[in-house]
């Protein structure tokens, strides 16, 4: 058949195997295919899926496994919380996502020679730097606060905590992630997304360990205060996801000089803006005396927006950077059908770059190829 978007002769199917355009929908909508995320066609692009955004190499079966493991982890956290083990619940909440991130990286079976460098840059270095920054900020916070004595906002403190610190932290994380940009086997934008995600998670884990060390001497092992649930969710779950998503978005923007409909500069500004907004909104709500639940809702909204930003970058990069590979018989790892595919599965539309076991592994050199428009 002739693709309605790129005009090339391709095997018949719902999707063009060269440019990924949806053949049932004409025009720009078919080329953009916002209802079918290129890394996981079972989901739409503007859907804040956690694992399919941060780890786009996971296929649908693996996604379900990771989701279930995450739910099990959250169940354990809730169980600890119900037992009154607040500090334990906090540490457990902060541990869930980093553990899954390490398992993901190891499961991808990256080239053995690169593994020490990968783990050092994605795990050890951000963990140490996160702890170091956590210590520094705890020292700063002894003299500066975003809140005045009467509970109102202090402009100087707010600028420090909501602008200066988030921007510095994002710069550190991005520098770490981008240091792997030129390494072999990491040429795709989605590789940058994974690296940014893992760096963000371990940076916050380092800071969380410092936080844990600070609160342990002041809080009994067993406490009877249900309000603990709010900080556990905020600092243990939402904060790490925010950091992973913001670093992933910045990394995706700069990895290959991505040239999609969101410019790299705009994507970086949006990612940084999300982090800053997250903190400012938290401070404003707290100073207004509203329920911590409002804070969590605000934080969840910002996190969802950051995840959607990552997905848009991933989706557009997969559509734009499709390599000009020859047609070959293969089995799609998503729909599991035997197909003749080049860059996209003609049946479900999965970008073949986003298949499992392709992070940090040897593969055909990337070439500028099919265009979506």
């Amino acid at each position: 058949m002739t693709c309605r978007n790129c005009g090339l002769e391709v095997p018949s199917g719902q999707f063009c195997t060269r440019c990924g355009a949806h053949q049932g929908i004409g025009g720009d909508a078919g080329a953009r295919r916002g209802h079918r995320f290129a890394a996981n066609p079972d989901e739409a692009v503007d859907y804040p899926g956690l694992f399919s955004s941060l780890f786009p190499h996971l296929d649908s079966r693996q996604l379900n496994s990771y989701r279930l493991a995450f739910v099990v982890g959250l169940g354990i956290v809730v169980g600890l919380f119900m037992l009154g083990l607040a500090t334990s619940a906090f540490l457990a909440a902060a541990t869930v996502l980093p553990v899954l991130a390490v398992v993901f990286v190891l499961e991808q079976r990256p080239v053995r020679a690169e593994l020490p460098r990968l783990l050092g840059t994605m795990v050890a270095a951000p963990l140490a730097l996160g702890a170091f920054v956590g210590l520094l900020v705890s020292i700063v916070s002894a003299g500066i606060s975003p809140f005045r004595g009467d509970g109102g906002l202090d402009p100087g403190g707010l600028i420090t905590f909501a602008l200066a610190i988030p921007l510095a932290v994002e710069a550190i994380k991005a520098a770490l992630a981008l240091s792997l940009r030129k390494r072999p086997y990491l040429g795709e934008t989605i590789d940058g997304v994974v690296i940014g995600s893992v760096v963000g998670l371990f940076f916050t884990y380092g800071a969380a360990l410092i936080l844990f060390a600070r609160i342990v001497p002041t809080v009994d092992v067993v406490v009877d205060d249900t309000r603990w649930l709010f900080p556990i969710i905020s600092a243990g779950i939402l904060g790490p996801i925010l950091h992973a998503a913001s670093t992933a978005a910045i990394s995706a923007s700069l990895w290959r000089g991505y040239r999609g409909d969101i410019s790299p500069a705009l994507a970086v500004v949006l990612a940084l803006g999300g982090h800053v907004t997250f903190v400012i909104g938290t401070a404003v709500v707290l100073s207004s005396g509203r329920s911590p639940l409002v804070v969590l809702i605000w934080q969840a909204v910002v996190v969802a927006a950051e995840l959607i930003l990552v997905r848009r970058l991933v989706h557009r990069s997969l559509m734009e950077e499709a390599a000009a590979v020859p047609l070959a018989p293969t089995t799609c790892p998503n729909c599991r059908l035997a197909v003749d595919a080049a860059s996209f599965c003609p049946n479900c539309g999965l970008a073949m770059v986003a298949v499992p076991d392709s992070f940090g592994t040897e593969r055909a050199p990337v070439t500028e190829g099919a265009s979506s428009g």
Partner: protein
Amino acid sequence: MANPAMPKAPAPKRLGAVALSTIVAVALALSTVLAVAAGSLAGPRAFAPDLPAELLAAPSGDVAPLISPGAPPGGITPP
């Protein structure tokens, strides 16, 4: 195009949901042991700070200045 004559291929061997959940459970069990041990070593507390609000105010949960509206800089203060 999809070849209907060929059956769906079996999924490759990967960690399943049970194995992943077990890894997470073991990691959290270890973190719990660590947390309880650290808390026990610290001994009984002389005061109980209003920690939830302070923690929630920690900018993005990453750097943890234990601060809260109305509290002096530095955070934790005995009542």
